[in-house]
């Protein structure tokens, strides 16, 4: 993602946090099932966590109905969008402005907490770029406006899984925006070995041969999930104290072995040559192509994600906010972004793939949109069946994860 320094931080923070304090939601069964798996209950508030295997259909409060059908868009309005920096194509915005004679104003945030704090303060943004890990807080906190599907016919263009997602059954609040995987990126001139062909590619980050050349995502959950996956533990939301202790020890070993940079700017650091091997988001390696210095070809870039899809997969989405003054335009904008041509242009601007039916791995390579050597960075629908998802942790577990992460970041034991 072409975010200036710091901007993506927000994103990763967003990705991680999520879940659901929703004792009031009609999902008690799923909730109890989830709890029984979580071991002893925490002293904090009870959280319901929407999971792929325990989907949630949110209640729509009576005082917060969707808008009526067939309303005219607001005239001469300013549509306010709250988004990560550089995560929306200027061209897509311009086209929408021209079509509807309105002004689009994009405000950006750097951090998920910052965004939610601001949303709670009663700002009048119309559209927000959310992650499923925030759904419970957004819905339970009454920040979202339910969608009227009649304004969004373009939903038919997206992968079927996203028309009834587990985090928002019946897409009552959300439309999908981008999809990405978290894997390993490297450049062949600095790392001659074929990382993807290794038995355990994650392990290469612990290989002293790459000392001072590596990086991991500055996102506690993604980075610690990498350690878990490396150790063969696929519960990337574990609440096991032993697992977390092991992760802490592995991170200490990691610092000693390769002293990785902890950052989210690999999309520019890797092409600049500061990093040779890194944990990476698929969108960032696609983006990295445009950051390569002159004379360096894109053929040196590589990305690995398990071909069977058993890795970290993720998606962001667009939601409309209850406090927005232009609900009709907001619906139309969501529909606009789901248009195949707009979505594709947006993809080329931000590097993150939309889940559009017309965009397939083959078509992207054929049209030379993505070079053959980065084919592995293209997200496929089946990944969302096999992949692992980072979910919101309940309060106590979240604190336990963060304590391990902060200790690692402090460079201590």
């Amino acid at each position, binding site marked *: 993602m072409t975010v200036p*320094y710091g901007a993506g*931080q927000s994103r990763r*923070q967003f990705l991680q*946090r999520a879940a659901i*304090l929703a004792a009031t939601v009609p999902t008690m069964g799923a909730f109890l099932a989830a709890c029984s798996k979580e071991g002893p209950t925490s002293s*904090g*508030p009870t959280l319901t966590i929407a999971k792929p295997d325990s989907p949630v259909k949110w209640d729509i409060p009576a005082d917060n109905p969707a808008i009526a059908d067939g309303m005219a868009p607001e005239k001469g309005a300013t549509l306010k969008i709250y988004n990560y920096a550089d995560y929306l194509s200027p061209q897509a915005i311009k086209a929408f402005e021209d079509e509807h004679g309105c002004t689009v104003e994009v405000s950006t945030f750097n*951090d*998920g*907490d910052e965004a*939610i*704090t601001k949303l*709670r303060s009663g700002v009048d943004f119309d559209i927000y770029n959310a992650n499923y890990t925030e759904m419970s*807080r957004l819905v*339970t*906190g009454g920040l979202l406006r339910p969608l009227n599907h009649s304004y969004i016919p373009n939903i038919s263009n997206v992968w079927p899984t996203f028309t009834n997602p587990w985090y928002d059954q019946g897409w009552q609040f959300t439309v999908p925006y981008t999809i990405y995987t978290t894997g390993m990126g490297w450049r062949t001139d600095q790392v001659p070995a074929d990382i993807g062909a290794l038995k355990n590619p994650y392990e290469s980050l612990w290989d002293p041969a790459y000392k*001072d*050349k590596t*990086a991991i995502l*500055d996102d*506690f959950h993604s980075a610690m999930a990498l350690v878990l996956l490396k150790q063969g533990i696929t519960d990337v939301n574990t609440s096991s104290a032993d697992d977390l202790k092991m992760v802490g020890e592995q991170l200490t070993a990691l*610092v000693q072995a390769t*002293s*990785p*940079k*902890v*950052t989210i700017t690999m999309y520019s650091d890797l092409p*600049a*040559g*500061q*990093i040779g091997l890194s944990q990476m988001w698929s969108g960032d390696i696609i983006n990295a192509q445009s950051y390569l*210095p002159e004379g360096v070809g894109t053929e040196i870039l590589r990305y690995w994600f398990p071909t069977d899809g058993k890795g970290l997969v993720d998606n962001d989405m667009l939601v409309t906010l209850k406090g927005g003054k232009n609900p009709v335009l907001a619906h139309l904008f969501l529909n606009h972004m789901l248009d195949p041509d707009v979505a594709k242009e947006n993809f080329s601007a931000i590097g993150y793939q939309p889940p559009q039916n017309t965009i397939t791995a083959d078509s992207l390579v054929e049209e030379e949109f993505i070079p053959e050597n980065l084919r592995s960075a293209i997200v496929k629908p089946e990944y969302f069946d096999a992949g692992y998802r980072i979910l919101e942790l309940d*309060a106590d577990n*979240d*604190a336990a994860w*963060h304590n391990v*992460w*902060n*200790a*690692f*970041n*402090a*460079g*201590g*034991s």
Partner: protein
Amino acid sequence: MLQRSREPNTRLWAALAAPGVGWLLLFFLAPLYVVLAIVFGRVDPLFRTAVPVWNPLEWNPAQFSYVLSRIAPGDVYFPAVLRTVVYVGAASILCLSIAFPVAYYVSRLADKRKGLLIALLIAPFWISYMMRMLAWVNLLQNDGLVNRILNFGGFLDVQVDWLTGQPLVVVLGLAYGYVPYMILPLYAGLDRLSQPMLEASRDLGANRVSSFLRVTLPLCRPTILAAVLLTCLPMLGDYFTNDLLSASPKTAMVGNLINDSVQAPGQTGQAGAFVMLVLLATVLPMFYYVRVTLRGDEVRT
């Protein structure tokens, strides 16, 4: 002089002090109380954001004691605390050894060119700190100018990874970033040095070196202290120099710990606890400074 200044019309003095006191109350004490209320406050159960608790009787020390119990030698946060002291100390010494000669030269020796030199000294402030650091990122990256110069145009194969967790780079970055903040106060102090006093020392037979050591240096001790404090304090809380030039846990400082906990949901209180500790650690030298400057005034009178 000291005595006279303490006596006169107290009402006038109170009136003159009012804006300053108001400023301190509004922009220092009140925010400080907010930090305390957050350190000892609650966490919103739904959004995991900090909820300040205003009544000290209801304060919960959990977050503060969490931090406090982890900063002793051998604990997880100790290396970062130690690193902060070492880095800031080294950077301050480096700053002083660069800034003092420059300030001395400008104030004592550069007669005609003084105006120009002062303008040049202020020049770095025209460019944002962030921009200057980003420029270093460019220079120090693997195919950057520094490595290219070290390669002598390809004759040697030197590939130094400057930007992946090198303590030296962080210290140099801090020194580079904060040296202008040290030159200006030093210049201001040195410029005010009493010329007759220096002449007297020379008249009484001191040579240049001993006049410098026995008159100039003691006279500008408060100035040096002020300059060092002015640069030390922001350095203690600095995190972005580190983030830009290293971003490795190996060089994490207290500023980074604060930044990390602020961004972690529900841990804003821990960040506040670090802030309080840094504050405590800096208030002590501040008192010393105040004492020294008061004594300096007495010496002058």
